[in-house]
């Protein structure tokens, strides 16, 4: 199966993108639901008769899917920007973008699963919201770096690549905490 995917870039690309969108939905549906829940109260609720319950959940899932699609489209652009700014020209870009998408999707997916723990049994109700994304993002960056550095960089170029990935990781982690 894995070998079949390795030999078929287009299929892998489509599957990763679908996984990416689904993972974003799993990760963000609670936030979308909460946003709708506030946005469609009062006057707005009257505009859409019966707009509650299951309908709100459906629309929340659609909004999350839309966010997923937007993120999926932005990710390759940002990845190319990163490679250009870091002056890294030795990696196959399409493949590298796909790997970025894959690790982002895994990150969203694991965060979504951890958020479900809060939903079912709220052990880390407040802290979990901060620590889960931080920990998952950190682990994903480490895993991503280990995989890509082993594949595309030698002992000399790894130092530069490490510094570049570290800067991006710090920016993303700071955003995770401050948000």
């Amino acid at each position, binding site marked *: 199966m894995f070998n079949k995917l*390795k*030999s*078929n*870039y*287009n299929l*892998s690309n489509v599957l990763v993108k679908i996984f990416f969108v689904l993972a974003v939905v799993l990760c963000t549906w*609670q*936030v979308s*639901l*909460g946003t*709708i*829940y*506030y946005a469609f*109260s*009062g*006057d707005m*609720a*009257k505009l859409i*008769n*019966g707009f*509650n*319950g299951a309908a*709100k*959940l459906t629309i929340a899932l659609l909004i999350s899917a839309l966010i997923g699609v937007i993120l999926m489209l932005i990710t390759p652009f940002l990845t190319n920007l990163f490679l250009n700014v870091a002056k890294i020209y*030795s990696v*196959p870009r*399409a*493949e590298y973008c*796909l*790997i970025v998408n894959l690790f982002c999707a895994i990150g969203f997916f694991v965060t979504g699963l951890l*958020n479900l723990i*809060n*939903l*079912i049994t*709220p*052990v*880390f*109700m*407040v*802290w*979990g*919201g*901060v*620590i889960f994304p*931080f920990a998952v993002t*950190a682990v994903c960056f480490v895993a991503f770096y280990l995989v890509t550095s*082993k*594949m*595309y*960089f*030698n*002992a*000399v*170029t*790894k*130092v530069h690549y*490490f510094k570049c990935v*570290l800067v991006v990781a710090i920016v993303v*982690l700071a955003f995770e*905490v401050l948000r």
Partner: protein
Amino acid sequence: MKKLFLLVVTLALVLTCCFTGIAYADTTADNYDKTFAYGFVKEFCEKFPDRKAGINVNNPFVTDENGNPGLQQYLKNKIIEVSNGEISTNDVTYQEFAVNEYDKGYNVGARLAKQGTNKQIIIGAHYDSDGEGANDNASGVAALLMVVNELSKNVSKLSCNVEFVLFDAEEQGFVGSRNYVANMSQTVKDNTLLMINVDCIANGDNLYVWCENKHTDLADLFVSKSEKIAEKPHAVGTFNLNAGNGYGYIEIPQNSDHAPFRIEGIPTALFFSGTYSAEPWNYTESENPIKNTMNSALDTFDNLEKHNQAEFVIKIETTADVIAKTVLDGEFLQISANQRSQLVNYNILGNAWWASLICIGALGIAVLVLVLVYYRKLQKRSILGTAEIKSSKVFTTPDAEDIFTFKK
């Protein structure tokens, strides 16, 4: 002579009910428009059809162009009027606060004092509104006045002090209640057993009381006082969202003046009407769309009466009745004192921001140390290693065939 005596006694009873008390035991479709609740909500909406906090009409210390008292002065007079002489002019206070950069708001407070105890409960309702606000929240103010009336008749039976507060600027984000809580000393907070909030009780499909997201003795006590009120269904699932008013989880009943009290650890009970299922997001004022008037220009007295007839009066009376009976219950003091131990705390690790910061900081330092160690290792390897060409690829495609078309 006997008949004359009976007539006099009957007349005396009727007059007593009409002028000194708020009788509401037998409200029906035939007599609801003669009740205190009906009369007050109608008068309040007619006199003050725009009670948005901060506008000029809210100035409590001036009369309007016809010589009538301003909004807060009117409320003060009403509290004194229904209090059976237990609350005098000096007992009613205004708490001034800034609604925004330009406008001031005023909470109106009154106290029924119980000698020999520092313990108190707070019963509140907001009087500001978006538009006429018949349901949101003239109905709550009416219920609060009825509670004042009932409790003031039974001061000797009270087990603690009762503070009544009519909050301003709820619609601006609980500005009045936030200011009220901010001005409470820690001692007063510790001595406050319970905050009861009454908001939007007249128009929704059901009448609910909500204390915590689980059964509590206090909720059971409230519900036991009337068959017309139910405890809000407990939400299934907890949503960790920033929009949760500081509770750490999200539920629609958090959106009222009790929230600032609950965040300070003071137990709360909210009375509200609507339709609620176990899903945290599944709240609506009514299953009938035309009745969904909250926070809109449709929340008028005419609509409230047209859609509900006697029902809205019964809801107001039930709320007042339940609150008064509960506060006067012999077990109330003990149960409300125990309520602090029954507060839902989803965050078993604590809510302190610094603890969260220390945890993140410790994680960050650990990551930094690992990064430095790894970086030094990389540097050593780069000095000792060879710069061989790495051309690994996961995919056998895209290859040149995918990008270019070759002539064969």
